[in-house]
């Protein structure tokens, strides 16, 4: 008989076992202890603009429906008829005040209450339809339009969970002079034959771009390409940060004016002087000069929210585990409310240029996930090394652990949280305290 997997030995401070990408048993535990027991990202509330709007999705691998009820509240219902198990909604997106199971006609409202049972007199007097409401996520909360749910009720408030990541989410949303983005411009969907964690690790990996994306940067034009590559070299001035709770960021806030332009261009594309000027004026009016400079200077972020959200460029990216070696990824590009159309068009074009199944960059990341999945089948080389930069991390005034942008600080942040959720508390040694390094 197979010996029991000891999770706490498979994920260590500076290395993780290949087994966590390959073993179905671990995947099943991840669904239970990570995706079904804590906050997971579902989508953006602008996807459900009107009452009755819905989209189907999964929480872990369980089918669910996110819908807006007639009071305007977002409901997260499990997509399973309480009669005999059929899904009650098959469309990916749509609008409907009710969900009808077409197997035997049971019908539910947008709160999940059973409102229709055909030939109801066939059930006995003791039949109580109130006991047959669709299952619901125990908790649904929003932050700046981002909708999260937890199937487990006993979790901290979302704002506490997001913690220091909120500052960066705010920067992303505040690119709009109205403080709001919309995710109604469609969705890119791609997948790969590998574990979901590859995508979450890679979205905040500042070590890979100059190799995986060299061709893209070079084709961007020599001057621009060189500047973008400069963000990810060994002597880059940019940071990576462990924001606690498994969240992390590549902080590309430019510390000198010289480097600012290409990053902003990557995010927004090129726009005419007049719309650029109108945009900056409306930003300044809303936020004041100092905050506007802060928002624009920090505008190209790679932010990971544990376990399944990445905010990169203009997009909200959701990592969707399908099986231990199959993953789907949905990208929701966002547009800014209250800006000239030209800016949003440029955002869409900039996004397409790099991302999606036919983009100039992201498919090369996906290729690496496929290659890793294949390579990790080698037995004997058990470990993936994640020690880069551990000797030079420090803690900043906000309490974040800060590494160089090319360091594996974000990946260590991810696995620290993974260990906390996956392993029995008794099996875990107290976390090794970070060396006391003074703040810079």
């Amino acid at each position, binding site marked *: 008989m197979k010996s029991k997997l000891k999770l706490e030995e498979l994920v260590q401070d500076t290395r993780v076992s290949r087994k966590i990408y390959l073993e179905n048993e671990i995947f099943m535990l991840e669904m239970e202890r990570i995706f079904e027991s804590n906050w997971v990202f579902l989508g953006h509330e602008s996807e459900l603009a009107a009452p009755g709007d819905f989209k189907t999705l999964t929480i872990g691998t369980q089918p669910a429906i996110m819908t807006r009820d007639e009071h305007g509240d977002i409901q997260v219902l499990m997509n399973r008829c309480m009669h005999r198990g059929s899904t009650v909604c098959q469309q990916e997106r749509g609008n409907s005040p009710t969900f009808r199971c077409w197997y035997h006609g049971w019908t539910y409202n947008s709160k999940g209450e059973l409102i229709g049972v055909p030939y109801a007199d066939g059930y006995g007097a003791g039949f109580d339809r109130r006991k047959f409401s669709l299952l619901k996520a125990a908790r649904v909360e929003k932050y700046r339009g981002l909708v999260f749910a937890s199937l487990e009720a006993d979790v901290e408030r979302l704002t506490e969970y997001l913690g220091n990541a909120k500052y960066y989410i705010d920067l992303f949303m505040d690119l709009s002079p109205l403080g709001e983005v919309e995710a109604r411009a469609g*969705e*890119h969907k791609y997948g790969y034959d590998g574990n979901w964690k590859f995508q979450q690790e890679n979205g905040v990996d500042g070590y890979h771009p100059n190799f995986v994306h060299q061709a893209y940067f070079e084709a961007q034009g020599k001057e621009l390409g060189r500047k973008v590559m400069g963000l990810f070299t060994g002597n880059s001035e940019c940071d990576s940060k462990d924001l606690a709770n498994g969240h992390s960021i590549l902080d590309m806030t430019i510390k000198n004016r010289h480097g600012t332009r290409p990053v902003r261009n990557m995010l927004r594309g090129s726009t005419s002087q007049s719309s650029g000027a109108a945009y900056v004026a409306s930003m300044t009016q809303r936020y004041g000069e100092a905050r506007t400079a802060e928002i624009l200077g920090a505008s190209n972020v790679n932010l990971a929210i544990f376990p399944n959200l990445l905010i990169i460029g203009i997009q909200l990216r959701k990592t969707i585990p399908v099986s231990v070696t199959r993953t789907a990824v949905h990208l929701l590009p966002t547009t800014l409310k209250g800006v000239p159309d030209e800016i949003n068009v440029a955002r869409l074009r900039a*996004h397409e240029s790099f991302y*999606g*199944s036919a983009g100039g960059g992201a498919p*090369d990341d996906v*290729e690496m996930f*496929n290659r890793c999945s294949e390579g990790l089948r080698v037995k004997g080389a058990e470990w993936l090394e994640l020690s880069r930069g551990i000797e030079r991390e420090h803690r900043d005034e906000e309490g974040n652990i800060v590494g160089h942008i090319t360091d594996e600080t974000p990946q260590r942040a991810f696995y620290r949280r993974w260990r906390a959720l996956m392993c029995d508390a008794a099996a875990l040694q107290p976390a090794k305290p970070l060396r006391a390094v003074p703040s810079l």
Partner: protein
Amino acid sequence: MPILSRSDAEDVLYREARILDERRYRDWLEMLADDATYWIPCNGEGSDPNREISLVFDDLKRLRDRVERLESGLAHAQSPPSATRRLISNVHIDDASDNAAAIWSGFILYELRHGRERVFAGRYEHRLQLVEGQWKIRRKKVVLVNNDEVIDNLTFIV
């Protein structure tokens, strides 16, 4: 005043299909007009690329970048490259006037890469323009049947 015939249209489409299957990307760029766009909508038919994300919405500059990447040896998602064979059929001339035409066609594209076979199907909508005696592609729109589904890799030219 030349009016495009179906046989003329098929000549252009078949030549393009062969060039792309043979990965002669420079030759393909030669088939394009200076103001060409290559558009692959996402999530359905594609109504307004300025309001909705596309899989590809390239002008000639971007296409040149794309080809440069494909030929760089560093386009990892095309290393090894996709071997493709596309069959084009059901060709209709939707509109033909002096020196310009709109063509509708159906295609099936077989792709083999790294031991994995995939089949794409869809329709092409070409707009052609006669430029110095040659029919050039001004717009190529590709509506994939599966453009609202997960697509792992679409980094070859469709």
